[in-house]
């Protein structure tokens, strides 16, 4: 065999070496993971890994070097304060062209700067507030849509709760310490966690996410009104609207509370009006009338429903009555919303209509019962006839027997 020329061997060797080192730059074999195994596990399932990013894209450094000197490059970034973290994330997530293919928004940092968290951080350099990584995670960031993501609706209370549920931390800022537990006892939390309705509010629904701010007194109605449209509409027409606009009254929150909000019921009337109107008999009278209307119609509806249901189970023809009941229910539900108007003269006609419908329903059922009773009365002639026939049979038999006797 002819000896291969020396130069050719060197070319081949260098070529192989280049190939190997370029392979070493591939994400799954970069040198970072030789030491940073924890981060490797966290990162491998993340959204950033799925997008084809690796350590170098955020941290810089030299992925070919397999020891600490990999950190020694000029481009190495290790954000050691939260402002730097925010700016690092924003370096990609604020870049419109880069975010376009992913359809992601790019105003997070701007919004963040308007938030209480952002204010504290950028104005006062408060390192204890939340920044991108506190809510989204560091290496294990997942898409918001993913149920394991820290910012998925069912995980939001826990994520916010890491700070806002920490009593010691909250006391430093003079913030309430029991918000998370309050929320967890609320009807909104029940909707999210037990009924699985993800459109129900979590912290970010009302407070916003990046621009998180507690809604000011003037804005509460707008926040609640995003979903509770009709109630807000009616409230704006009520005497309370002016009071709220003047800043004396915290719209929805004054009566319903905020974090620990429970399902609205007639009992609220007893507890909330007296907060301001304790010595105002005229308003208390109005309260009594409104509460009375609602409570009475609710009770009457339940009773009528039971009557119709019992009749249906017995097998009476209650199609019409069921239809009427649905109409009645419509009136009751309307009343419950309309009480925000605080105008008894507007509610009274609705209640009257309700009463008419219920009266008609119960009268119809009573008619059905009358027919049933008629059946019982029909038993008398039936028995009379049967008794007559029995006597006739018996008499005929006696007659035959007497005829047989010699």
């Amino acid at each position, binding site marked *: 065999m002819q000896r291969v020329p020396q130069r050719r061997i060197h070319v081949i060797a260098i070529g192989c070496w280049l190939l190997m080192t370029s392979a070493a730059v591939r994400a799954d074999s970069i040198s970072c993971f030789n030491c940073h195994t924890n981060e490797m596990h966290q990162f491998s399932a993340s959204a950033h890994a799925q997008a084809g990013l690796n350590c170098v894209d955020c941290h810089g450094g030299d992925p070919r070097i397999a020891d600490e000197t990999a950190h020694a490059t000029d481009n190495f970034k290790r954000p050691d304060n939260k402002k730097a973290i925010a700016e690092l994330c924003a370096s990609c997530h604020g870049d419109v062209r880069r975010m376009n293919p992913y359809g992601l928004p790019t105003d997070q940092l701007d919004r963040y700067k308007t938030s209480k968290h952002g204010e504290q951080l950028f104005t006062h350099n408060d390192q204890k507030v939340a920044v991108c990584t506190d809510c989204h995670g560091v290496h294990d960031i997942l898409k918001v849509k993913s149920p394991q993501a820290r910012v998925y609706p069912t995980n939001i209370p826990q994520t916010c709760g890491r700070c806002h549920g920490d009593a010691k931390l909250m006391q430093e800022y003079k913030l309430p310490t029991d918000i998370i537990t309050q929320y967890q006892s609320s009807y909104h939390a029940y909707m999210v966690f037990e009924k699985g309705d993800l459109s129900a509010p979590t912290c970010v629904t009302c407070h916003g996410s990046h621009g998180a701010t507690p809604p000011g007194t003037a804005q509460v109605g707008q926040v609640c009104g995003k979903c509770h*449209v*009709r*109630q807000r509409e009616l409230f704006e027409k009520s005497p309370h609207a002016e009071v709220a606009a003047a800043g004396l009254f915290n719209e929805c929150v004054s009566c319903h509370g905020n974090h620990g909000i429970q399902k609205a019921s007639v009992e609220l009337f007893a507890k909330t009006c007296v907060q301001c109107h304790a010595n105002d008999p005229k308003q208390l009278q109005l309260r009594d009338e409104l509460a009375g209307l609602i409570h009475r119609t609710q009770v009457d509806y339940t009773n009528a429903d039971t009557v119709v249901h019992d009749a249906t189970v017995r097998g009476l023809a209650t199609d019409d009555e069921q*239809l009427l009941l*649905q109409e009645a229910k419509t009136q009751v539900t309307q009343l*419950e919303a309309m009480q925000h108007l605080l105008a008894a003269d507007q509610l009274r006609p609705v209640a009257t209509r309700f009463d008419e419908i219920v009266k008609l329903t119960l009268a119809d059922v009573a008619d059905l019962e009358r027919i049933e009773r008629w059946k019982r009365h029909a038993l008398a002639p039936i028995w009379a006839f049967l008794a007559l026939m029995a006597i*006739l049979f018996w008499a005929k038999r006696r007659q035959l027997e007497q005829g047989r006797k010699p």
Partner: protein
Amino acid sequence: MNEEQRISRRTFLDWLLAGGLLTWAVAFVAPVISYVWPAQRRGPSIQTVSAGKADEFADWQTKMVAIAGQPVIVVRTPQGFRAFSAICTHLGCIVGWDAARRLIACPCHAGFFDINGRPVAGPPPRPLSEHAVAVVNGEVLVKSA
């Protein structure tokens, strides 16, 4: 007792018995005939309910009908008749028609549905279920379920 009296008593008893038995037979048969006579034009499997004559509907006019005890709203659009369950998918109030907005509206919490039954504003989470409508011989027939 002589023969004549005995015979007439026997005949009288026989007449009574015959009459009673006949009455009895009628009392058995009459309800049966009444039972099998169709109680309504269509039996338990109610397929369609009439919403009246098509001529009675102007464009964008609506009417409420009941199918198996449930309210249904029928609308005439320029493209034809549509019918939807009139029970709001939010909290079950009976919806109505907002002529100005040309939307199905729920009076309880201002939920609005478009002409395809889809919620466009307010709290309703799901669309209204639709019922098929056909115009047969000028009559508007709404199909159940």
